[in-house]
């Protein structure tokens, strides 16, 4: 029993701040996997396995752990993005498709508004002309918008595709297997790049940011939604308590997988805080880099532009 208390106390206190070299940079062969120390290759393998295991229960677990709040966070991200019809989105580590689906909904709604406004201005057209305009608009309900979902994990993509089918998303979506550190896309291709709750799991964050810069068009926007650092001491203590005491239990009871969710909460603590991530994004070449805290900094949205 005494041993348990030691662990509990150690877990509730902040972990020793890892030297910046270890956070996102492969300085030498040693890296962190949650609170363990592993080699770069081991880390990639372990993380792949984590998501392979959790893929089927990913959405259920997200709802349970955050009591549904993650949906609001993702809504806020897409709202901030404010995509117009015709936007080409790359959602990296997009796995089960949450951001891509929201993007499509948003663009569809925006398109509807656009069409309605257009019709209002065409009061003096003949019936034939109105009929023609309906015809061409029907084929562009998304207005040429496209969402590309890229993920390194086959299982997550599989779940995402099934969800898309189940929810009735067919056009404007593509699914690509790829690594954030080495994207299978040409330069200057996308209008928006998003990575939601994924960058934490990337082994070389600097490479991922460089790739993001490369595939964005000039004028393109980088958006990152990720767990971050809570400064408020009271919230921080409650958040730590909840993270370490409740979340692995939820993982065990709901998904039958304690270890993956233990990894989750540890990886959050290891991730660079807001200012540090902002600097890393600037280092990759982005301008006007800024961040917005949600829920006291439990989650933060970082944004940057390629000029």
């Amino acid at each position, binding site marked *: 029993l005494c041993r348990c208390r030691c*662990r509990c106390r150690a877990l509730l206190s902040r972990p020793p701040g890892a030297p910046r070299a270890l956070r996102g940079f492969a300085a030498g062969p040693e890296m962190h996997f949650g609170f363990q120390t592993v080699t770069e290759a081991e880390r990639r393998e372990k993380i792949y396995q984590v998501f392979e295991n959790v893929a089927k229960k990913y959405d259920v677990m997200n709802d349970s752990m955050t009591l549904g709040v993650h949906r609001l966070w993702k809504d806020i991200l897409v709202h901030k993005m404010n995509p117009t019809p015709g936007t080409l989105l790359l959602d990296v580590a997009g796995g089960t498709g949450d951001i891509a689906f929201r993007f499509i909904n948003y663009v569809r709604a925006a398109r509807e508004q656009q069409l309605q406004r257009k019709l209002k201005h065409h009061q003096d057209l003949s019936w034939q002309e109105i009929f023609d305009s309906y015809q061409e608009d029907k084929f562009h309900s998304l207005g040429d918008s496209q969402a590309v979902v890229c993920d390194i994990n086959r299982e997550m993509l599989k779940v995402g595709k099934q969800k898309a089918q189940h929810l009735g998303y067919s056009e404007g979506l593509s699914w690509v297997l790829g690594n954030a550190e080495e994207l299978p896309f040409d330069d200057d291709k996308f209008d928006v790049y998003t990575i939601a709750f994924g960058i934490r799991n990337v082994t070389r964050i600097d490479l991922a940011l460089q790739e993001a810069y490369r595939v964005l068009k000039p004028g393109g926007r980088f958006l990152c939604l990720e767990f971050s650092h809570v400064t408020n001491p009271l919230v921080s203590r409650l958040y730590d308590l909840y993270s370490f005491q409740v979340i*692995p239990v939820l993982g065990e009871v709901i998904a039958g997988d304690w270890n993956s969710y233990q990894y989750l909460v540890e990886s959050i603590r290891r991730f660079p805080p807001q200012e540090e991530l902002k600097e890393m994004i600037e280092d990759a070449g982005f301008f006007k880099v800024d961040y917005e805290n949600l829920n006291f900094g439990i989650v933060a949205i970082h944004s940057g532009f390629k000029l």
Partner: protein
Amino acid sequence: GRARLSRQDGRGVEEEEEEEGWQQLYPGHIPTSPLQKALLAAGSAVMALYDPYRHDMVAVLGETTGCLALPNLRDKMKHHPEGYRILQERPCIRLSTLDMARLRGLPDGSLGREYVRFLEDNKVSPDTRMPPRFVDDEELAYVIQRYREVHDLMHTLLGMPTNMLGEVVVKWFEAVQTGLPMCVLGAAFGPVRLSTRKLQVLATELVPWAIRSGRNASCILNVYYEQRWEQPVESLREEIGIFPPP
């Protein structure tokens, strides 16, 4: 991998994580705080009732609530010559350690033959038992693992199949024998999913017999089953003190 708990020099396997100072006492061990154990116990109980196919939840419930019953069982084993030997030698019932061909060749009515028949009839295997993870004592972890492995033998000795009814009867027997809260809960709530006809049989014949046998029998963990494959089931029943099934 499976947690094979074998006695090495001194106490089990200890790994110290430098940063946190928690100790993994055996392979697969996950140290948990009292709060986590409480949450796990509650969560696993609810989940086990909600989805009876979650055997892992039943296992977790047993581990998180066994803090009084397990030391009790371990002491019973320590103070019995055969039980003491089991604690020393740590035998495991696994397909890799069993000679299935030999057991199948034993005469009908012998423990080994009937056990294999039970495994084949019910299409179960001794390798599907969950290794313990949340027990914070290496020896007690072995005790609960032994209890799980002996469970199938209980089915054989009691003559009960692995359907819901049979499982409930075995749970009643084990509840009386071990005092494990998980067995008590399983015995009390298991019948919820049975039809009235089965409930009647359960209440009038099977449970009273299971309780009488459980009370009368010596501790089932004190029998070195691996050395008794040739013994006829009837003789073993008599020796332990289990009454013939109705």
